[in-house]
Structures are given as structure tokens and as C-alpha cells.
């Protein structure tokens, strides 16, 4: 990396800091800092949701998986797009009409204050760890891209480069700064991506040539979108669809952007637009990942593939190109970090601090607490990222697995029973949330050989002989299928929460709180001069919702049919996805 590249990066960070701080003038009350005064419009919302969703992990991590295993990892983004449309049609307009600021706030409306505090604290901690992981991945990749020495000093320098500016302006400017800066960073990120793809494609003699090469290799799955075998096969795609629905309906960082929309319809529009534009954008890291697989196969760590590609191909093209692309990657990272820091501050202030304080707080006091908690979150994420350097990638993978398992029960109690089943009470929701997580984690430890040997086997000596033998036999039975079974663990935590919540609810008293406000939220009350019914009233609205549902069904049939090596599996899955997007667009722009 040349001095010009460094100058471009430093200049970019300085400009981001100045603009971010200038936005702090917009902050007048806590609604401005939590949900940008609920003034956001569709295209701004789309940019901020997309920027929050995409981070450097997508370019480096998912590009690396495409390098190693093939293009099917693109479903991690494409299922996310479908899930955003489903959330825009059925969930987010209800939340937005309730004028909540966080998902745990909905849990108080629906269940109890204690569950709100529990979920708020859980999500706050989970996001801090996630932010630490994002910083770890970004700083590790930056060292490889820039070619600087891999030591602690350089690692800490990159950690600070990725975090200080984002902590600063999210603490001072709140959700307004996040929204405006995300729109800017979305364009910078996209500009960087636009530079990389043609250079990578040119290096392999054009993408069709690369595809021909992969087709010529017997049994290669690099170009298969719905493969029958491998880690990222049809079972993985089914699991990631489930996790995506969870992400689009309960993820605080994404939903908080949607809560800042001017009206429920604008929230839905922003989400559908984000879903549609993310679909082609995903190709900007999948295709370079495949190009890297053609150019330099054999990296032991797939995370090194994309940094190698950038460091090798960009400098010969022109001076400053690497710095420009690095700005795009930093923009992706900063936009994800700021949104999450803002969300942690909201969760801590709105759901934990406010719940624990008895008296009403002034607006000035709330804004001060948000700013202090933003800085505290920043310090915590830096500490997690610093510690992760010692633990390495194993800790990152374990966290992703655990988070996938623990989040699903929250989705079940919030969306499935919270919105759609009146009889669910706080006892059932709390039991479903906790038991779903515990059963999921236990299953994961029983299935994954590494964890079984390290953690479960030592405990078996203290258990009765027959029980210990049963556990060992179960592990031996599933061990040969570890990769496949590991993919279905989130289904197990979901199923547990799905069963436990209604059973405990029916065994305990009916919910005492009046859910009349929730029932009204499903109606199309006018807001900002716009009416939006969750249940469509017109013919075209019903047609659009039908297209979304049929699209999901076609997608599911396509993915599952891959199990029998059906030749049209990919076509069906992609056609289903297009139907979902079409239905979503008609839904939010009609009626």
C-alpha cells in the first residue's frame, strides 16, 4: 500500500468524522437520537438498511466461502432479501404503527416489563460481541490487504481506524447521523465494489471462462446455486432462510432503521427496496470470490482469498485504486458498526436503564445516557475484538453458531406467538425463550465432535452409567453426519420454543394486559397522510400478498427438490425469489 492509498483512507475518515459531527445539530429530543425523528423516506431508509446489513464480513467472509465452496453462499443474502419482503408485508408495519423504539419494547406491550428487560440486556450483550467480531474480521483482513506487518500494534491501529469515527458520530449524532452517513457510505461502498469486479473478471479472462473451467472439473460445486452435497447444500439454504426470517423480523439494528420511517408504508417500502437492490449487489463479492478460486486455489483459510485478490490485482491497475477500494470496505464496516452501536445504546437506555429507574426521565437526561452507553458499547466491542486476536477464528464460528441458536426462540415468542396468538402469556414466552436456547445449545454440543470431546465427555464421568452411554451412543450415531446435522440445530431450538411456549401458556393464567392496541396496529390507520393495511383490502393488494406467499412456496419446493437432484431446482428457487420481490413491490406501491 502506497502513501497515496494511506492519504485517501485518512482523508475519507476525516471527512466522515466532520460530516457526522455536523449532523449532531439535528438532535433535539430522544426520538431524534433513537429513530431519527421518524422522518425517514423510502430511499434513505433503503440505503441505511442495506448499509447496516452489509459489512466487511460480506466482502471478505462470504467472498471467501464462495472461493472455497462455491456460489451457493449467495443464498445467505438472497434469503435475507426474501425475508425482508415478508417482514415488510406482515410484521414491520405493525411494529411501526405501535411507535416502539426497540423489539423488547414490543415484548413489554405484549407480555411483561421483566421480559423486556431480559431481552434488552440479552440483545445488548449479543450485539457488543457481534460488533467485536466484525472489528476482528475487518482488522485481520486490512492487515493482509495493506501488506503491513501482522503484529499487535498494527492490529490495534486498524481496530481504532474502523471504530473511533463510528463511535464518535453515532454517540453524538444518534440515529440521524446513522441514517445520513449510511446513505453516503452506501454509495462509497458500491463504488468500491464496482471497481473490483471488472478487474477480477479481466484477470480470469472473463467470468464465462471461469465458469467453463469449473464445469470441466468433475464433481465441482462452485457454480451450483442449489447443490445436493457439501456444507452449503439445500439443507443449509433451508436453515439460512429460517434464520433470515428471524433476522428481518427481530434484529434490533435492522428494525430500528425501519422504526425511523415516516409511516408504516414507508417502512415497508424501504425494506422491499433494500431486498431488491441487495440481490444483484451480492454478486459483487461472489463473482470475485469465484475468480480468486480460479486464479489461486488452495488457501487453507478462505478468509485470505479476497484480501489476496485485492492486494495482488489492484495496485498494478493504478496508484490510489487500492486506497479507494479500501475506503469502500471501511464505509461498509463503519455503517454496520454505527447502526449497531446506536441499537445497543437504544436497548440499554430504553429497555434496561429506563425500566430499572422508577421515576420519569427528562429528554436531556435520556440523550446523555444514550451518548454514554454508545461510548461504553464502543469500549466493550474494542475489548472483545482485542481478546479475539488471541482466540482466533474458532471463537468467531462458535459465536455465529450460538447466536443462530439463541435468536430463534426470541423470534418464536416475539413474532409467531407475540403477533399471531393472543393466548400466549409472559410465563410461556419466558419459558419458550430460555428452554429453546438451552435445548439448542445442548444439541449443538452433542453434535459437534470438537465440543463433545472438550466439554461433554468430561461431564459424562459424573453421570449415571446408562444415561452417559445413551448420550455417547447418540453422539456416535450423528458424528458421521456432523456437517448436515449442525445445520438443523436452529430448527431444534425453534421447535422447542414452538412447543414449550403454548404448553406453558395454557397451563398458566390468561394474559392480563389488554392487547387492544396491538389489534389496532393491524388496521390501516392513516399516518403521515398514508393508510396501510397489514391485511390487504383491495384486489391488487390481495394479489400481491398471494404472489409473495406462492413465491416462498416455489422457492421452498425448488430448494427441497435438490435433495433428489432435480435438474430444475435452481430455476424454481430463483423464480420463487423473483415472485416474492415482485409481490413485495406491488404490495407496498399499491392500495
Amino acid at each position, binding site marked *: 500500500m502506497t502513501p497515496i492509498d494511506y492519504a485517501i483512507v485518512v482523508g475519507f475518515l476525516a471527512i466522515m468524522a466532520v460530516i457526522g459531527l455536523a449532523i449532531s445539530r439535528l438532535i433535539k429530543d430522544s426520538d431524534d437520537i433513537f429513530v431519527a*425523528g421518524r422522518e425517514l423516506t423510502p*430511499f434513505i431508509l433503503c440505503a441505511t438498511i442495506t448499509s447496516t446489513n452489509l459489512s466487511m464480513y460480506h466482502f471478505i467472509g462470504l467472498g471467501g466461502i464462495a472461493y472455497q465452496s462455491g456460489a451457493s453462499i449467495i443464498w445467505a443474502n438472497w434469503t435475507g432479501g426474501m425475508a425482508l419482503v415478508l417482514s415488510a408485508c406482515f410484521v414491520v408495519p405493525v411494529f411501526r404503527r405501535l411507535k416502539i423504539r426497540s423489539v423488547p419494547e414490543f415484548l413489554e406491550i405484549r407480555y411483561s416489563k421483566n421480559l423486556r428487560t431480559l431481552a434488552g440486556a440479552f440483545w445488548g450483550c449479543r450485539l457488543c460481541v457481534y460488533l467485536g467480531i466484525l472489528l476482528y474480521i475487518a482488522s485481520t483482513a486490512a492487515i493482509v490487504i495493506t501488506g503491513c506487518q501482522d503484529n499487535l500494534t498494527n492490529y490495534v491501529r486498524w481496530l481504532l481506524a474502523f471504530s473511533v469515527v463510528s463511535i464518535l458520530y453515532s454517540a453524538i449524532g444518534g440515529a440521524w447521523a446513522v441514517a445520513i452517513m449510511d446513505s453516503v457510505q452506501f*454509495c462509497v461502498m*458500491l463504488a468500491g465494489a*464496482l471497481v473490483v469486479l471488472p478487474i477480477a473478471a479481466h484477470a480470469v479472462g*472473463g467470468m464465462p471462462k471461469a465458469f467453463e473451467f469449473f464445469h470441466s472439473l468433475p464433481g465441482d460445486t462452485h457454480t451450483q446455486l442449489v447443490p445436493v452435497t457439501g456444507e452449503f447444500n439445500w439443507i443449509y439454504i433451508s436453515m439460512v432462510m429460517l434464520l433470515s426470517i428471524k433476522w428481518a423480523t427481530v434484529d434490533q439494528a435492522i428494525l430500528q432503521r425501519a422504526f425511523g420511517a415516516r409511516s408504516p408504508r414507508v417502512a415497508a417500502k424501504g425494506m422491499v427496496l433494500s431486498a431488491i437492490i441487495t440481490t444483484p449487489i451480492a454478486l459483487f463479492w461472489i*463473482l470475485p470470490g469465484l475468480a480468486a478460486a480460479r486464479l489461486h486455489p488452495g488457501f487453507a483459510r478462505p478468509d485470505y482469498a479476497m484480501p489476496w485478490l485485492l492486494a495482488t490485482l489492484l495496485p498494478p491497475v493504478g496508484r490510489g485504486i487500492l486506497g479507494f477500494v479500501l475506503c469502500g470496505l471501511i464505509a461498509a464496516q463503519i455503517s454496520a458498526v454505527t447502526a449497531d452501536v446506536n441499537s445497543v445504546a437504544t436497548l440499554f437506555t430504553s429497555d434496561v436503564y429506563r425500566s430499572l429507574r422508577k421515576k420519569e426521565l427528562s429528554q436531556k437526561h435520556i440523550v446523555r445516557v444514550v451518548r454514554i452507553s454508545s461510548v461504553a458499547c464502543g469500549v466493550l466491542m474494542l475489548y472483545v475484538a482485542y481478546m479475539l486476536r488471541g482466540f482466533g477464528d474458532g471463537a468467531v464460528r462458535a459465536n455465529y453458531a450460538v447466536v443462530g441458536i439463541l435468536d430463534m426462540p426470541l423470534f418464536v415468542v416475539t413474532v409467531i406467538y407475540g403477533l399471531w396468538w393472543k393466548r400466549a402469556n409472559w410465563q410461556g414466552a419466558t419459558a419458550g425463550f430460555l428452554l429453546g436456547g438451552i435445548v439448542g445449545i445442548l444439541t449443538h454440543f452433542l453434535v459437534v465432535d470438537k465440543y463433545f470431546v472438550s466439554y461433554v465427555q468430561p461431564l459424562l464421568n459424573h453421570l449415571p452409567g446408562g444415561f452417559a452411554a445413551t448420550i455417547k451412543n447418540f453422539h456416535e450415531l450423528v458424528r458421521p453426519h456432523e456437517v448436515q446435522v449442525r445445520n438443523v440445530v436452529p430448527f431444534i431450538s425453534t421447535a422447542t420454543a414452538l412447543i414449550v411456549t403454548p404448553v406453558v401458556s395454557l397451563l398458566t393464567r390468561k394474559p392480563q394486559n389488554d392487547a387492544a392496541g396491538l389489534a389496532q396496529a393491524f388496521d390501516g390507520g392513516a399516518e403521515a397522510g398514508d393508510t396501510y393495511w397489514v391485511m390487504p383490502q383491495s384486489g391488487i393488494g390481495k394479489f400481491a400478498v398471494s404472489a409473495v406467499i406462492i413465491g416462498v412456496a416455489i422457492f421452498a419446493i425448488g430448494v427441497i427438490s435438490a435433495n433428489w437432484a432435480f435438474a430444475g431446482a435452481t430455476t424454481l428457487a430463483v423464480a420463487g425469489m423473483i415472485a416474492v420481490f415482485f409481490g413485495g413491490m406491488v404490495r407496498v406501491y399499491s392500495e
Partner: protein
Amino acid sequence: MDWITALVEGIGVVIFCVWVVVPVREFASIRRRLREENAKGKHDAH
């Protein structure tokens, strides 16, 4: 440039251009409305 890269780049450029222009206009509109509301609020207070 091959047809796959050209197609993806073309879509990317269109998205880039739309998201450079439209959000700027939307921010200007929000700013104008907030100013009008502030002015109206001050007027009502008087």
C-alpha cells in the same frame, strides 16, 4: 468485458446513480419540512 460482468456492473451503476440522486432530494425535502415546522412552532408560541 464479458457479458456477465457487464450486466452486473450495469445494474450496479444504475443503483449507484439512483442512490446518489434520490436520497439527496429526500434529505432536502425533510430539511425543508422540519424548518417549516420549526418556524410554525415558533409562530404559534408567539
